């Protein structure tokens, strides 16, 4: 009894300290934290109350070539096809569905959005991206966008309640997944997994005119690391992310369109060959089929961009020149006619 008498006032005192902390933080410090750690909040706040098309993308909607005459992004070009509609861009480099789902959940419910267009990047399903070292800062930036009370979110941020593996652990996990995920072909293939294939490519090299050309070999290895995987819809975290986005869109009454980004198939073929194309095509077919079965419109740009329209020739990316962006935007625009039939016009 004596101990209870001793403890109870202290519990109240502790509660008062926490309450005061919460009040001071929410009133005077939260906004500064938001600006410092989650500046994307400003873009989210800028979404007009009535938005016809919300375009959510990663660097494919940010990058352009220096010598492009038309430097508009894909979403701006899309807006050009729908001049009478409000098209808003919510893009962030290196992001993917796992990050986008938090952005979307943070959009206030009073903002009426008719159609959500989101990039669907095949590479983001692979271990190379899932275990990327960029994931930790991205996950951290998302904490304050959550729907919890500000002091709870600060608590999560302080006590690392997010995916906070360090670079070394992520790299280790990536290598482990490349080892453990068996590559299955309908024919004999000499390498059991991504690591073996990558090692073999690094050892053999690409021989142009007889010698081993290291930068080209490096690029071929990058293609293997980026695309040599097979999506398992039961375990792939990205599938789960897209499913959650579809559920959220259904809840909010948004039309959903996935813009399946074009990959450099020509380069993949040239550097690595048909085996890699087989895997890329298999993953492509799987995601298109999987999401279309859920009633999502998938704009299939997977093979729509030819090699010459990729900006990065020494890296795997979905950064397109103006012709590439225009082509992708045009395809998306055509598919959006089902939701906005009267507003479409040729650019």
């Amino acid at each position, binding site marked *: 009894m004596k*101990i209870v008498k*001793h403890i109870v006032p202290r519990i109240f*005192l*502790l509660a008062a*300290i*926490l309450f*005061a*902390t919460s009040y*001071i*933080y929410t009133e005077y*410090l939260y906004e500064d934290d938001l600006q410092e*750690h989650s500046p994307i909040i400003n873009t989210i706040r800028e979404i007009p109350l009535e938005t016809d098309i919300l375009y959510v993308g990663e660097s494919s909607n940010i990058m352009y070539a220096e010598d492009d005459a038309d430097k508009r992004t894909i979403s701006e070009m899309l807006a050009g096809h729908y001049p009478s509609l409000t098209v808003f861009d919510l893009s962030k480099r290196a992001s993917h569905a796992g990050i986008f789902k938090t952005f979307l959940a943070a959009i206030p419910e009073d903002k009426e959005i008719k159609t959500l267009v989101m990039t669907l990047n095949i590479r983001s399903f692979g271990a190379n991206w899932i275990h990327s070292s960029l994931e*930790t800062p991205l996950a*951290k930036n998302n904490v304050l966008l959550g729907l919890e009370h500000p*002091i709870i979110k*600060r*608590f*999560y*941020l*302080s*006590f*690392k*309640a997010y995916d*906070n593996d*360090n670079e*070394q*652990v992520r790299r*280790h996990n990536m*290598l482990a997944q490349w080892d453990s995920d068996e590559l299955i072909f309908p024919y004999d293939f000499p390498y059991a997994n991504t690591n073996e294939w990558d090692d073999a490519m690094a050892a053999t090299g690409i021989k142009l005119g007889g010698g081993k050309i290291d930068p080209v070999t490096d690029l071929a290895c990058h293609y293997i690391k980026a695309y040599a995987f097979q999506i398992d819809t039961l375990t792939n975290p990205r599938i789960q992310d897209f499913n959650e986005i579809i559920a959220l869109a259904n809840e909010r009454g948004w039309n959903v369109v996935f813009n399946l980004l074009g990959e450099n198939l020509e380069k993949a073929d040239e550097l690595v060959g048909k085996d890699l194309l087989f895997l890329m095509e298999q993953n492509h077919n799987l995601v298109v089929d999987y999401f279309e079965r859920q009633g999502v419109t998938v704009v299939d740009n997977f093979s729509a961009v030819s090699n010459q329209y990729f900006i990065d020739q020494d890296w795997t990316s979905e950064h397109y020149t103006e012709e590439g962006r225009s082509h992708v935007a045009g395809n998306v625009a055509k598919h959006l006619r089902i939701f906005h039939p009267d507003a479409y016009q040729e650019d």
Partner: protein
Amino acid sequence: MLFNTLDYILFLPIVIIGYYLLNAKYRWALLLIASYYFYMCWKPEYVVLILASTLIDYFAGLQMAKRDSKKKRRPFLYMSLAANLGILFAFKYANFFSETATNIAHSMDFMVHFPLFDFLLPVGISFYTFQTISYSIDVYNDKIRPERHLGHFALFVSFFPQLVAGPIERFSSLSPQLKRPQSFDYENFKNGLRMILFGLFAKMVIADNAAPIADVIFNDPELYNSFNISLGLFFYSFQLYCDFFGYSLIAIGSALIMGIKLMDNFNSPYLSVNVADFWRRWHISLSTWFRDYIYFPMGGNRVRKMKWIFNIVAVFVISGFWHGASFTFIFWGLLVGLLYVIEMTINKALKIRTEIKPFSANHLLRAAKTFIIISFTWIFFRSLTFADSWIMFDALFSNGGLDGKTLDISMVLWLTLAGFIVLDWVLYNKRFDTWVGRQPFVLRWVLYAMMIFSIMVFTGVEEIPFIYFQF
């Protein structure tokens, strides 16, 4: 699982509640399961290393106890040392030796490449291997009787609060406490929470906010003037201290709530009057380990002067190598050892008293001198290569003036660090929990409120793991 994570905040109360609800006979099993779970949260497969270390030392201990002469025990001691040091070597030092051998071969025009291994360094490997080595040596020297209960022994090796970064406990101190039926003690509970609170404050508010400042200076010293580099070094000194001190406090506090008293690991080291005093106050559990298991067996100070100098320097070089597999750590150990010897020699020659009145002007001046010396040595501790250390020293002494880029240090960091320094001063030769318990109610709760507020609101958000975890 790190102490400053939500996972630990949920894990600890569950273990503590389970611990006190369970019959005392079975608590060891709960703690053992909790400890293995705690470790496996990081990399499950590495638990086999602790298991291997546990089984080998358990077996070696029992075998040694069966033999009455040291000569007969020796093979089992060697077996234990080989296993533990072998694990340590394979996971911590193999790449260092491989790289060094490759570099030496290349310098002699032998174009061979010794293999490098893509291992993750098992967290805490240097700590638990040293703890089990001390057990084997103590059994060998007949100082303790071996543990016959495998579960109890496994718990001694893996007790989660001190598993990954110490304090490195002795069997004679920790094991009896783990076996003793502990009834809930409100004083221990309060004191444990106090230690955890202060530890979180030191780690999350001071160390994690000081880290980005130290990082920018160590990453690009050329960009900053000497004044700012000095500031960066100052903040690194406190980052390192608060990081490890904070960790130790949380470890001690977590164990204390369960009635288990771990040894103190720090005692206001930056108020030390000389380098020797510093090493009596910094990472005490490691310093005493080296003293008992390396320095004393080498003869300690009961040898000729040159041998004594050799003993001191050798112990510090080994300590440097323990901290990390790189030449900068070895050099850091060598430097500290030499400083230790030089200062002791000067003090002896000039008959400078080491016993001084605390907080006198003399104390403060000598503490400032020691702090500056130690801070310089941290340059080698923090730098990845000698070239980096040299760039830092060069910039520190040649980027004069107050021009150039300046550090952006928040007022919050200055204020919280000032608060910490005052507290560290007050705690000279005292423990936080007992000291704060004696303060008036209002002062005590104002202090708690400030710490809680700072932890909730001002914590650094960069990804900075406990520095000593990497050792």
